[in-house]
């Protein structure tokens, strides 16, 4: 039966998020080269063009001892947890580790792998502009990607042709379009799929072979189109913030004591990962890739329009609010993260103008279920104007 169908596919995606190592190793078993990446500013297309599957390094959410003598204790728990994955040798099977100079916490997590987890000989750091909107940034990025391409060609012992790149660009664009379509289901009043489910699929896509992922997504969307919507949605909550690969948070949001729907996530583990496209059929492929990455929703660490200091990310957020019509916004950021709270200071007045209430979740390795639950239910009570 159809309904069973979509559930089955979603289950498959969930299984991958819970067994990323098993999945990745199975690809390796088929003779695939695997490259781990720690930040979504890594041009996966270049890896993919060389026949390497990019696998995003994710955290394990068990409290990570012993990283505090490698990473400062006031670095975010996501960077600690990722560093821990290296020190525990959970990813030793990777053929390569790639990082782009992004937020400093993750960059240092990368350094821990390189210095203390045996990745010195199989790692590459891509110099990436810290402000993506300057005129020279594009040119610099093209050069930087060029050097990366050369490294990968040496590493994979094969030259990457323009056709290879174009194919990769198209596969990835396809993947982005499909994920986008999936999220757009949530613009409906009674979508056939929940935010938690889509968040799970989106997370899975970050560790999957994109070709396989695309096939699965197409089937999923096909079946969803055919399925009746779920019960009319409750309070619509939109999330915006930093990296969060902890599905427990999204699960909590959809299982409060009130009926609520998670309708959008603006973060580098969700929308920021795929909500953009590369120009296709351009003569200069690296230029196309650079343009794609520069055009995406900016990471708060890199967002600063020269001349005005405007934060471009805010335009996107306002657009999402218009399209997805949230009743409330949940800011979430890793404890000790600096860029995110900076944005929240400036975003709150915008939300107040729009009359959208909000609350902040400060993320850590562990999830204080009752505290977060209370914060979220209180937010819903504001929205529902609950009073005696």
């Amino acid at each position, binding site marked *: 039966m159809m309904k069973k169908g979509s559930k089955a596919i979603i289950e498959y995606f969930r299984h991958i998020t819970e067994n990323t190592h098993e999945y990745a190793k199975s690809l390796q078993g088929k003779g695939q080269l695997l490259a781990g990446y720690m930040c979504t500013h890594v041009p996966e297309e270049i890896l993919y063009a060389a026949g390497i599957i990019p696998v995003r390094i994710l955290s394990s959410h068990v409290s990570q001892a012993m990283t505090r003598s490698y990473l400062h204790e006031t670095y975010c728990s996501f960077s600690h947890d990722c560093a821990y994955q290296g020190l525990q040798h959970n990813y030793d099977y990777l053929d390569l580790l790639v990082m782009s100079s992004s937020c400093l916490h993750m960059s240092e997590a990368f350094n821990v792998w390189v210095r203390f987890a045996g990745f010195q000989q199989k790692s590459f750091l891509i110099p990436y502009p810290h402000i993506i909107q300057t005129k020279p940034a594009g040119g610099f990025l093209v050069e930087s990607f060029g050097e990366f391409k050369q490294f990968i060609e040496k590493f994979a012992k094969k030259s990457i042709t323009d056709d290879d790149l174009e194919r990769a660009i198209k596969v990835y664009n396809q993947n982005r379009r499909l994920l986008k379509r999936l999220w757009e289901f949530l613009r409906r009043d009674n979508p056939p799929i929940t935010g938690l489910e889509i968040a799970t699929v989106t997370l899975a896509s970050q560790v999957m072979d994109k070709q396989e992922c695309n096939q699965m997504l197409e089937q999923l969307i096909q079946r969803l189109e055919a399925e009746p919507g779920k019960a009319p949605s409750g309070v619509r909550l939109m999330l915006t913030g930093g990296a969060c690969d902890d599905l427990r948070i999204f699960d909590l949001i959809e299982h409060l004591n009130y009926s609520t729907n998670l309708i959008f996530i603006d973060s580098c583990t969700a929308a920021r990962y795929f909500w953009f496209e590369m120009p296709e059929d351009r003569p200069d492929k690296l230029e196309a890739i650079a343009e794609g990455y520069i055009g995406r929703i900016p990471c708060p660490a890199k967002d600063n329009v020269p001349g005005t200091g405007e934060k471009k990310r805010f335009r996107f957020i306002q657009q999402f609010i218009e399209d997805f019509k949230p009743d409330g916004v949940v800011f979430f950021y890793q404890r000790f993260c600096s860029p995110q709270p900076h944005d929240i200071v400036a975003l709150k007045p915008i939300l107040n103008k729009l009359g959208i*209430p909000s609350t902040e979740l400060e993320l850590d390795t562990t999830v204080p279920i009752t505290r977060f639950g*209370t914060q979220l239910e209180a937010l819903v009570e*504001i929205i529902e104007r609950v009073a005696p």
Partner: protein
Amino acid sequence: MNEYSSVNKQLDWRRAKVIVAGVDSGAVSSKAVILLDGQPYAFSQVRTRTPKESAFSAINAALAKTHLGLQDIHYIVATGCGRAQVPFTHKTISEIACSAAGAVHIWGPTVRTVLDAGGQSCKVIHCTEKGRVTAFLWNDKCAEGIGRSMEVFADLAKKEVTEIGNIALQSDQFPKISDFCVVYARSEALDLIRSKVPLEQVIAAYHYAMAKRISTLVARLGVKKDFVIIGGLAKNPGIIDWLESILLVSSLAPKPEWDPTLTVTLGAALFADAFYRRQQYNISAPNTAGKP
């Protein structure tokens, strides 16, 4: 463990049309308030180990001197971090909403800002004259446990937690210690011993630091008058004094008839009362997933 309960003998539940209760279920302690036709009737406060146990013993303690039985109560609302664990409740409401409802009931419709300074957390709440929450702010993780830390600090100083608040008022000259987190503050307070700072100054310094930290939270959301403070720290004159002078705003004095730590529980009872009446005139209560 310690247990406390009291009953308002003036009232007779046999005459009451609406009998409701609010239960505030914490991790290691619970409180219950019973209302008869909206009038405060019985209170209790108990300490036990798990939310489930303590919720039961709280409601039972409240019922004890009343000859009422659990089945006689028309409607029960549970709140507090353990609210989901309370088996005998009709509905649960967050302590944020209950704080506002309770505070407005106790201090009247002029209340706009409520600071709930409890053992683990501090919450700043904006509300309407009806006690409806319009915005709230929960302390950041590094500001947790301020209330509890007072007990710990009192222990270290071999004093009663009820004393130190007054001792803190005795000196306005003292060295400043970290007001960023209670661990830092405590370490620096302990270190003041080495510089032979008199104990009352150390206590003052500690209270000032904690008040300062809370004040940044209150300021982040902003204070609209009238301002009231509830929760355990509301009983600590040292904290209140410094808070008011740092924020340049005075809070309404506590009402003799209401223990500020019962505000949230009262709020829950008020919700129970309201929900029951709406049920009677079948006005639908706010959307819930039918839990519990």
